[in-house]
Each structure stands twice: as C-alpha cells, then as structure tokens.
C-alpha cells in the first residue's frame, strides 16, 4: 500500500511538472545529422577532439544575423583552435523567407568564407528540440553536450566595439577552465525563427 501511495504521488509530480519546450542550462542536448553547405552531413560526434561546441541558430536574412556575422566568424577563429568550434544552423522555412534557402546559405558561406559548418535544419526538429526562438541564438555545450549557456552573443547588437559583456566568450572561457559560465542565460531582441505553418 505504501508503495502504491509513493507511486501515486510520483505520478502526480510528473504530471504537475511544467511542460518545457527545448533545453535549459544543465540539460543534455541531442546530437544531430544535418546537411552542410558543402553537401556533406555534419554531427557533433564528428568532432572527436572537441572540448565543447558553440551551436548558433542563425540565418541569411535577419538584420541581427547580419550585425553579428563578423562576430560569429571571429568566435570560430578564436575558439575552434582551442577545441570549441562554431556550428551554425539555419532552421528558417524558405517557403516563408526565400532568402533563407539552402542555395543562399551556400552563397553566403562562400562569400563570407565560413570556416565552420553552416547546416540546414530542414524539418526544424533540431531548432525545436533545442528551444531556439531567435536568430542568432547561441547554445554553448560541453563536450558531453551539457548546456552551459543559452542566449545572445553579447550585450550590444548594434556596435561590436561598444560591447561590455561578452556572454559567449565568457561562457566558453569558463568551459575551457572547467568552470560554470558566469552568466548562463540571456535574452535579446531578434528575428523570430520562421516556422513552417502547421
């Protein structure tokens, strides 16, 4: 009888726990297999020596993505060598936003000289599983895919030289030192991901 009561309350607890979409800090992210701009498939597991990952939901068209483009390239330049590469993912529905087509991704990656993968999340399942909402929206993961940080790259979208808080850099530096990120979650104004209509 006692056991039954425990089970009963455990069930209530499960039922009452809030339904949460996407990842929170401390959760374990899922890996993925997505098509890169070079036509090949990329998974996080492909990076055998990685110490972590900077997963960025991004796109071609959003003015915030454009404002952060060079900063994303710089993040990869700085941290890929230290074992924490940038992995960019575009989940925007090209039927809603034609400038976010795969062909345009290929063109932009070439034009900007991306040294990191720029993957297409055609089904939008990875964006949903991660809980990405904006572009650019960053998830800093440890090598065992534990979420260390979710949010914006820094605190000034408009001017890279006026930034005072480098959230992603701080989180990755902490990760490399085996410490917790000083700031684990931030929000920013941005373009909503263009979801497919149900």
């Amino acid at each position, binding site marked *: 009888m006692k056991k039954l009561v425990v089970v009963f309350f455990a069930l209530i607890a499960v039922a009452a726990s809030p339904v949460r979409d996407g990842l929170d800090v401390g959760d374990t992210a899922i890996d993925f297999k997505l098509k890169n701009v070079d036509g090949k498939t990329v998974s996080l597991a492909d990076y055998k020596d990685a110490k972590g990952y900077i997963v960025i939901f991004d796109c071609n068209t959003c*003015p915030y993505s454009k404002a952060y483009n060079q900063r994303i390239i710089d993040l990869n330049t700085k941290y890929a060598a230290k074992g924490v590469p940038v992995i960019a993912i575009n989940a925007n529905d090209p039927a809603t936003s034609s400038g976010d087509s795969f062909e345009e991704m290929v063109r932009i990656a070439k034009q900007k000289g991306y040294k990191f993968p720029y993957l297409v999340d055609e089904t939008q399942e990875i964006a949903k599983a991660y809980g990405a*909402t*904006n572009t650019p929206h960053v998830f800093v993961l440890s090598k065992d895919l534990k979420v260390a940080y979710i949010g914006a790259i820094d*605190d000034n979208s408009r001017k890279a030289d006026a930034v005072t808080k480098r959230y992603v850099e701080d989180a990755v530096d902490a990760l490399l030192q085996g410490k917790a990120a000083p700031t684990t979650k931030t*929000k*920013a104004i941005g373009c*909503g991901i263009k979801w497919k209509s149900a």
Partner: protein
Amino acid sequence: MKKSIQFVVLAVILSVAASAQTINQIKLKDLQKLLTTKSDRVQVINFWATWCAPCVKEIPLFEKLRSDNSNVDITLVSMDFDLDPDPAKVERFVTRKALKNKVVILAETDPNSWIDKIDKSWSGALPATLIINTQTGKRKLIQKELHEGDLEKLITEVSN
C-alpha cells in the same frame, strides 16, 4: 512657373506633415505603466520593427482592429532603437503606411536587462503581441505572426 512649382512642393510637404503623427520615444517605465495602469479598455501592444517582414505584414490587422473595435487601446511599439537609434526610419515608415494607430519607439539599450520586465515568457523575438485586461490582470503573449481573426479571438479570451 517657378512659383507654382514652389507652391506644389510646399503643399506636398504640408500635407505630409499634417498626416504624420508625432512618434514619441518612450522608456521602459512608460511601457510598464501602459501594461499595468487600470483601464476598462483592453490593451493591445504589438512589438515590431521596420526590418521585420512578418511584423510589417501583420500591421494592417491592427489598423483594421482600430476601426472595428473602439473598446481597445492599440499601441505599436517599435523595437528599431536597438539596431538603429535614429527615429527617421520609423517616422518614414509610419508616414508612408499612413498608420492611424499610436506608434512609439522604445528607446532602451541592453535588452537582456528588460525583456523579462515586459513579459517573462517573451524570448525577445519579433513580432510579439501582448493583449492585457488590466482590470483582471489576464494577459496573452503571442510570439509569432498573427493572422486574420486571431486578435479578435485573443481579445475575447482576456475579456471573459
């Protein structure tokens, strides 16, 4: 001839000036006041920006609501300031579209410090629309593009 051209130019400038509304730059505390001050009219607050295609697409729905329903207060809050603090682009947009709804610019930097103060469940993505019954505190936040009929349904939901 020259004089008549001058007159036409002047007339055009005057008519544009007459149709354009003054767009105030507001601070977070002004916006918070709008969200909480008790009113018997439902507050409809839309967060948008000139660069945001789905926002621009749904703006006519708010203009239509304005002429259909006199029991709501509509405020279109431009979030352009974050990327471009010059209000000229917003002013030109409002004039070109001849918007009748009240438009304000939220003139604040560092969005991470205030997005939660507008609504904890808001990610910061645009477009977003808040519908508030300030009498009961009932509110709805929609974080996607609205379609025909959505606003009316949401207003009914917070009114009951």
